[in-house]
């Protein structure tokens, strides 16, 4: 990272998160473990990409995954909703528990799992359909709406929660691709939350966006956190500091350190973490 972070990491953590952190500590007791990864190893063909990762992610809080490029953050994130199943030659070992149930158990259906665990990608990827159809996609395939008005309600609700409704309410029939990058990403978030997921995975959701669009999405995350377990991969240390309560640092496929965000940024225990957050490598 750049030198600015090194100079004033603690200062930057303060302002936006302080309030949230207070709330966080106050209700720490209620915070249950939503997702728990145990002994996760993963191979792409011959190449091992994850080594014995153990990580707990709490409900109603944001967990940030940071680490240098290629260290396996995305890979780990994709394990959480079994998106790696789609990749040929990918082998998984270990367990990931959602509310205590192993999502890799044979009886678990990835299709249903992915309805409970939503995902937002690095590059906005709306379908080449209308804005309405983009959001209605999930409810439709999962049969969540019994009537047309139901469906409209879900769509409007999701768009509202994603903070996009006001901007697009007059052109719900326009193509999703016609929106700006930031709007597209919020559309993708609306699409992801349209099926009422319990967990929301976000893989560098702001890396393709300008600062204003980024700010909007960060505010949105803060709001969504009230009801969801959010896991976010980010390359921006400031962003991790701003939005997350806990931060996990990955390096070369291994989970090096995980702790409260303030702890990671002010007082990391591992020297690699320290080097990374202070921008000495990465």
């Amino acid at each position, binding site marked *: 990272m750049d030198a600015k972070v090194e100079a004033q990491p603690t200062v930057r953590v303060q302002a936006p998160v302080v309030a949230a952190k207070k709330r966080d500590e106050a209700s720490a007791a209620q915070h249950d473990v939503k997702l728990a990864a145990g002994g996760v190893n993963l191979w792409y063909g011959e190449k091992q990409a994850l080594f014995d990762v153990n990580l707990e992610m709490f409900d109603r809080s944001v967990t940030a995954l940071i680490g240098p490029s290629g260290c396996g953050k995305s890979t780990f994130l994709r394990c959480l909703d079994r998106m790696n199943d789609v990749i040929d030659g990918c082998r998984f070992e270990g367990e990931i528990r959602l*509310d205590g149930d192993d999502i890799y158990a044979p009886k678990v*259906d990835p*299709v*249903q799992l992915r*309805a*409970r665990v939503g995902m937002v990608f690095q590059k906005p990827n709306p379908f080449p359909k209308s804005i309405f159809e983009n959001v209605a996609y999930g409810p439709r*395939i*999962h*049969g969540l709406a019994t009537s047309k008005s139901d469906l409209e309600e879900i769509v409007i*609700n999701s768009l*509202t*929660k994603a903070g996009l409704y006001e901007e697009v309410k007059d052109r719900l029939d326009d193509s999703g691709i016609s929106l700006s990058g930031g709007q597209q990403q919020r559309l993708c978030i609306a699409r992801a*939350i349209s*099926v*009422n*997921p*319990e967990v929301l995975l976000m893989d560098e959701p702001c890396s393709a966006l300008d600062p204003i669009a980024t700010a909007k999405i960060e505010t949105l995350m*803060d*709001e*969504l956190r*009230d*009801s*969801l377990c959010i896991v976010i991969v980010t390359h921006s240390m400031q962003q991790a500091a701003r939005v997350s309560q806990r931060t996990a640092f990955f390096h070369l496929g291994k989970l090096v350190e995980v702790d409260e965000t303030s702890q990671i940024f002010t007082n990391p225990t591992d020297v690699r973490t320290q080097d990374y957050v202070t921008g000495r490598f990465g």
Partner: protein
Amino acid sequence: MSDAQPIEPAAGAEWNSDKARRRVRRRYAANRRLQAYGIIAISIAVGLLGVLVASIVVTGYPAFVQTKIDLPIYVDPAKVDAEDPASGKYRSLVREALAKVVPGVPENQQRSVGKILTSDASYILRDYVVEHSDAIGKTITLPLALSDPFDQLYKGVIPKELDALSWVQVRWFERMTNRGVVAEHDGRTSLKLDVYIDPATVDAGPPPSGDFDGLARNSLQAYLPKVHDTSQFDMLANDAPAAIEKRVAADPAIVGKTVQVFFSVSLPYAALAKGEIPKITNPRFTDAQLEAFEVIEQKGLLRTPFNWELLFNADSRFPERAGLAGAITGSFYALLICFMLSFPIGIATAVYLEEFAPKNRFTDLIEVNINNLAAVPSVVFGLLGLAVFLGFFGLPRSVPLVGGMVLSLMTLPTIIITTRAALKAVPPSIREAALGVGASKHQVMMHHVLPLALPGIMTGTIIGMAQALGETAPLLLIGMNAFIPSVENMGLLEPATSLPTQIFSWADSPERGFVSRTSAAILVLLGFLLIMNVVAIALRQMFQRKW
């Protein structure tokens, strides 16, 4: 805002409800259905390819062998003058030789028995004797091809006997039996039918007259579905009209009434009623021919060697003598012209467009043209050749030169497009390196880029040539489907035929033997195409470089 509208977390139980599970099962079923459609579609496509290849191979492979008879022929000096062997009485020599093998054929059958041999037999003998004049006065054994029907008979492609009745006819008769219409009457198998003696067509006489045949047919028709031919009425023996006539003669009062008449059935059906499978001699043969053929077969004079004539003879009106040499030569000449024109022109165009051309309206026009030419139907190129090369420039019809020119116009787009791809694949670093040491753009092209792109260009060219080899329609239009009975004076400016047009001509021939020849010719054509493609692929594999 967020406190006002919390998202309700979906209750975990909801995903486990029966309804949800049923829904998921349904969704997976739809997925499997789609996959199954895909597999079915591919199986159909591959299956159809298999059927195509199989039907061609099955009909074509017998043509790769030819039934021949080793006929001992006494070259009688009385009939062949050693001074002038070309004008001997060879026809009678062959007939005598055959008579020796199959003695006792009555005079009036000899002609038909002679048809066992190819109609060219006497010419083959003449050509042999003209070349070997020492054979005069000796007995020589000459392998002669059998004529087409007997060739196929020996190979088992067509049978000696046919079923007298088609399976539909058998079914019709079964239906009649089940209806209880079939009965024994006067010791003959008969049909007991209700006949309305229509006063409109029958005059009671005496003597009675009228369309009794029609009445008999109508009465039979009542039991059977309507068809468009007369194959149903064969069921009645010839005396059916007479049966009605007899009844009317016996009692004129029945005119205008419906009466029951017994019609005896024709012989094959009578046999069928007795539980036999009725057979008839294949109408392509006479009994005398079959007898003679059996004698020849028993004497062990027949063999089926590989049919080199298929490849080395020119065309003939007799299937057993027809070969592909003319077609292969014609195709070779046309492809030669096509290659000589389209290879240099194609490369020059591609190099210009890819390396030298400025990006402007004009070069855009050329590119659009090339892309569109690639999609113009081949028959239109035929029209072009006809109107321009034959009509305007007055070049001769049917000649490989024109064929090759038309084909080269068609293959140009292919060659240009693949050459450009090959040029694109040469990395810019090589160009830059060469330019860097002071070579001119032309030098870089000639000395560095083209040699590196050559394997790709060759691959594209061979593929283009393979396409050209299979093209038929344009060659038909410029008349390159001439009948070429001899390959001797073939040339670029002589009428010719080509492999695909030969296939077309043979497929159109009425002689049954050409069916098998056509398939064999197709196999030869596919063989050439296969070789060309294998070479193209091998070239690509061999020279494929990773930069």
